[in-house]
């Protein structure tokens, strides 16, 4: 197996086990879009564990970034990142989850709606990349 695929697998195992620990300790499905939105949309008192979880996430990623070179190749200009962030924000709340909430946790618990959501967002993601890369020919 290529080393980057092995790292991808180990990283995936970390994400799954971290989601399990967060599920058991919070009693909730710890999807990132839900956790993030409830930091500023939930009742006060429900926000503390969510904020700590996200601070941990930033810290853990920062630790890896500090230890070695991590690749980052931008695929879109900043104005398009802003637009993307906006529709990801609306879409994840309207659809009730993101890659972690639906794709990992919801599917991992056998939720039918999560399977439908995951098939749809993977499908529109594939279609979007197809249009951008093969019809338009990239984003300046």
């Amino acid at each position: 197996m290529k080393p980057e695929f092995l790292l991808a697998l180990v990283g995936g195992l970390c994400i799954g086990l971290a989601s399990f620990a967060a599920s058991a300790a919070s009693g909730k499905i710890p999807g990132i879009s839900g956790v993030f939105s409830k930091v500023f949309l939930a009742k006060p008192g429900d926000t503390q564990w969510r904020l700590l979880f996200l601070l941990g996430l930033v810290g853990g990623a920062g630790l890896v970034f500090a230890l070695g070179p991590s690749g980052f190749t931008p695929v879109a200009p900043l104005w398009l990142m802003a637009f993307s962030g906006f529709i990801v924000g609306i879409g994840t709340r309207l659809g009730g989850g993101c890659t972690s909430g639906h794709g990992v946790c919801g599917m991992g618990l056998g939720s039918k709606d999560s399977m439908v959501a995951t098939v749809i967002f993977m499908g529109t993601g594939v279609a979007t990349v197809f249009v951008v890369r093969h019809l338009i020919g990239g984003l300046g």
Partner: protein
Amino acid sequence: MRLLVLFLSGALFGIGLAISGMTNPVIVTGFLDVAGAWNPALVFVMGGALGSYAFSMWAWRKLAGGRGWFGRPLPKGESDRVNWRLVTGAAMFGIGWGLSGFCPGPAIANLAILRPEAMVFVPMMALGMLVARAVFRSS
């Protein structure tokens, strides 16, 4: 203690995102580019995450029934109804994901090094969530 466990789970999640390569947008769009030079890395990330989450939740439920830790219940997979909100929302999310190569976790992880892409994506995502709540009453 409970809050420390949740902080450390977040840290493990962030470590997983960073070592898996999901924090690099080009790996994500490479996975979504099935008609081009397809990069299967995300199959390993998603497979590893989904498999280990499904197994550990199943195994813990076998051991401890519906109990989680610190007196919390183990969450169940409660399926909402599949309706226009779910379909439209998931479709919009996928378009944003394909355009940027960012979903919420990797975007937030990239705040650790103040990556400009993350610094514009994350506040706009928060704004989108506020709009979703105001317009569609979905929290």
